[in-house]
């Protein structure tokens, strides 16, 4: 019975030691990923001779600071990726004329159609220009202008082709 109790106590002590070691490693990893200052890194190196020997033995040409820099860059890249995807430049919005500009354009087109009506004809170049002006209007106004034009042509008030 005494043996069992002592074994259990020893196991508890060992588990506690293991927990502390894991906690210490976690703290070091956190420091690395948070980008600890060079002074802190130096202090860390001095307080952990094992880490220093590992560095010098395995990677003599790469300092801890270099590694931190690489980790920081990788973390920054990972962090920036979703933002970059979200901020993909969208199609520029179709320029919308102001109501005043629309009103002005509609009046100009009406005047043009009246002119062609009074003349009784429209040539190909004039039709192309008129259609370009009409295309710049918002949908409702565009439909109305095309309606006016096609009806005038159907009635024979304007001789020409679209």
């Amino acid at each position: 019975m005494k043996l069992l109790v002592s074994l259990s106590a020893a196991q508890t002590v060992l588990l506690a030691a293991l927990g502390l070691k894991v906690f210490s490693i976690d703290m070091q990893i956190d420091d690395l990923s948070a980008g600890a200052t060079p002074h802190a890194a130096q202090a860390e190196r001095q307080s952990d001779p094992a880490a220093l020997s590992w560095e010098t033995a395995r990677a003599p040409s790469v300092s801890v600071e270099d590694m931190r820099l690489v980790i920081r860059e990788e973390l920054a890249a990972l962090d920036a990726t979703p933002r970059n995807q979200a901020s993909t430049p969208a199609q520029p919005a179709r320029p919308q004329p102001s109501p005043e500009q629309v009103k002005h354009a509609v009046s100009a087109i009406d005047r043009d159609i009246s002119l062609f009506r009074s003349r009784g004809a429209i040539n190909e170049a004039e039709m192309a220009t008129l259609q370009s002006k009409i295309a710049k209007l918002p949908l409702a106004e565009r439909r109305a202008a095309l309606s006016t034009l096609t009806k005038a042509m159907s009635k024979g008030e304007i001789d020409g082709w679209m």
Partner: protein
Amino acid sequence: MTIKRKTLLAGFAAAFASTAAVAGMVQPAPVDVDLTTFFAGGDMLSARYAPNKNEFIGCGVRKFDDGAGGAIAFGFCQAEDADGERAFCNTDNEDLLDAIEASADYGYVTFTWDEKTGQCTRIGFSNQSFYVPPKVGSNL
């Protein structure tokens, strides 16, 4: 010339005459514009070679850069018959625009329109052998 040779020549002549006379079904459709039912129809070949200066029929699409990477499009159909009756309609309906863009040479064209708005209400194309002009080429 021997009788045998005459018979042979007559045979050849008959053979050529028959191929010239038989060239498949032909169905000319002169342009008709009806301003009471708001209908227009006719085939392009008949319109182009009509014995008058009036007839024409067809549809087209106009596209304009919208300044935002897209385009503003509208389509139209137009026709005039031998009597000088004219019809025009326009559309921004994407399906009708697709129909216009799917048209082919020598086809029959038909459209109807809304008198009040001038908008096309139906656009049809029919591509048939009997609208194709003679001597375009031959598979025979």
